[in-house]
């Protein structure tokens, strides 16, 4: 099994007619994802290589039965796009777009939590989600992942996620689902959401978690792992040597007021029984050892 998405997930792409949306939407379709519709209020009735375009998400859902959406709309439109999808009844929203203002993110996170508790948001500023062999929503290169499990991956970083998928594939290890939660201050889906889903998924036997500096999401995940996870977890946290007060590329990756250091995160995870690698390769090797002993 996989978490959040599988071969039956029908996806509408908000922004399919834009250059990024078109490029990745078609790549996702080629991978095997059920890309059933796109939206653009000005281009309703047209199509992108046979994928029908509707004016609204609600129209697309009614015509195609889509339950998930993927957002490639430029940053100023993301707040409206997320709310439109939630109001239409989409259950799983993947927002790829980077550069969304933090106040917008805080607003739609709380709006969904208050009014649309059955809608899950992933992102913004994330690579998306892939259940290898079944469904790929977002910008991950599908062929770098091996299907079938037993490992689940959750990550705050894009390229480090690809690195992890690729290293596991090289070692002959498959992945149930790989979730990129993104590097922004208010991610729609947290480490804990994914860890809980992996714990409940019978085909996932072990979890790899890739964190980075900033905030306290890794520390909170460590507490959750200690209290609730029976499955083994390996981890890597990027930014050990990041200087305080400097944002390291991601809006969320900053050490401020002595908080959010990689060292503190690694210690909290090790305390919770997680095997922590000093670099991505070592985390992959630790996972290979775990898988060999399953």
């Amino acid at each position, binding site marked *: 099994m996989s978490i959040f998405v599988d071969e039956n997930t029908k996806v509408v792409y908000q922004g399919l007619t834009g250059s990024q949306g078109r490029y990745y939407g078609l*790549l996702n379709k080629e991978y095997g994802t059920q890309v059933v519709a796109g939206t653009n209020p000005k281009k309703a009735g047209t199509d992108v290589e046979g994928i029908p375009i509707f004016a609204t998400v609600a129209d697309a859902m009614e015509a195609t039965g889509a339950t998930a959406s993927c957002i490639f709309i430029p*940053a*100023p439109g993301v707040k409206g796009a997320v709310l439109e999808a939630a109001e239409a009844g989409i259950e799983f929203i993947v927002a790829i777009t980077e550069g*969304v*203002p*933090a*106040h917008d993110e*805080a*607003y739609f*996170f*709380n*709006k969904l*939590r*208050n009014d649309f508790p059955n809608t899950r948001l992933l992102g913004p500023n994330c690579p998306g989600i892939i259940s290898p062999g079944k469904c790929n929503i977002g*910008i*991950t*290169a599908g*062929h*770098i992942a091996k299907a079938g499990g037993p490992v689940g991956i959750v*990550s*705050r*970083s*894009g*390229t*480090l996620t*690809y*690195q992890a998928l*690729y290293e596991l594939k090289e070692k002959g290890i498959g992945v149930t689902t790989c979730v990129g939660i993104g*590097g922004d*201050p*208010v991610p729609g889906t947290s480490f804990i959401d994914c860890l809980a889903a992996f714990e409940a998924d019978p085909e996932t036997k072990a979890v790899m978690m*890739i964190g*980075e*500096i900033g*905030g*306290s*999401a890794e520390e*909170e995940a460590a507490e959750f792992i200690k209290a609730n996870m029976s499955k083994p977890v390996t981890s*890597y946290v*990027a*930014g*050990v*040597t*990041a*200087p305080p007060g*400097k*944002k*390291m*590329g*991601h*809006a*969320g*990756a900053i050490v401020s*007021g*002595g908080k959010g250091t*990689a060292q503190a995160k690694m210690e909290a995870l090790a305390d919770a029984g997680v095997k922590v690698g*000093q*670099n*991505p*390769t070592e985390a992959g090797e630790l996972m290979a050892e775990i898988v060999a002993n399953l």
Partner: protein
Amino acid sequence: MDLLEYQGKQFFAQYGIPVSDGEATDNVDDAVAIAERVGYPVVVKAQVHTGGRGKAGGVKLAENADEARMHASNILGLDIKGHVVKTIWVEIASDIAEEYYASFTLDRSAKQHLGMLSAEGGVEIETVAEENPDAIAKIHVDPTVGLTEDQCRAWVEAANLNPDATDGAVDILMKLYNAYVEGDADLVEINPLILKPTGEVHALDAKVSLDGNATYEHPDYTKYDATQPRDEREEAAHAKGLQYVGLDGSVGVIANGAGLAMSTVDVVNQVGGKPANFLDIGGGANADVMSGAMEVINNDPAVKAIFINIFGGITRGEEVANGIIEAMNRVTIDAPIVIRLDGTNANEGRAILEPHLSDSLMMETTMLDAARKAVELADSQANG
């Protein structure tokens, strides 16, 4: 984007928050003219992106024009923790009865806005938080609801300010929340927020950090660009639109993706080297971006070796390899380069690089080996 105090005060003033009458300047004559206009006594304050200005002699009280001139000329050009003072702010001095602390920021754990208010202002809030956490009244605000006046009043009462300050504090905090939300700020902080003997509540300092992602909603924020704390290298990288952070080592780092770039910096440290920078060139790695990145790294005299760490996802290894070779044709690089290329079509990419390999362009297959090689080269260059 971090604002200087005077920019923060002007930002506050736009939202109706009372600040002291004053002006910023970069020269002594203007400083005296401003002092004459606002009336003595005045405070002359260094405008730098660092704390501890008072201790460094960057904040002085002037009773007359001679003192204003003396302080202004002493403070301009002063070096405060490596920040040279280019701008000073001259404002009318305030009488202070009590000093408080107030701020709004995002609580990333609760995923709501967090307001903090304390009767113990004028000192580092981190110190108060450690020594007397009960002295800080906290409030969470749901961004979909906003801060209501009733909620705000209850919060002010919980902070045990002087009762004379209650109405003024409620008024300022409502305006401060509005400035925080409408202005797309990451942080708004007033320390100290003062109660004057005459009963008014007033912002005596301003610390504001704005969300760089929200500039499309606030085109005027480009004016803060020039005063961001960047060194020469960071300025050059910023002009090219690169995600660059200057560090103080000798191994130049170029990687794609923020996480991989951070990880590359970490690995260089782990094998005993010192990275010269963090540089994320983003998902693709075409010749334009790559040559821009190489130029920035090459202009850093401290760089003795360069480590290019690229993982191909959607971008294939061949494209990355061609981008690197094209970039090397455009920019003359002084330091030796070590490349690690992995991911999609890594073998095809490596085959393209193969004929170009030399003492100044080397290739390793793993991140650790490449880091070791780059560090070894940097050390031998530094010693030779």
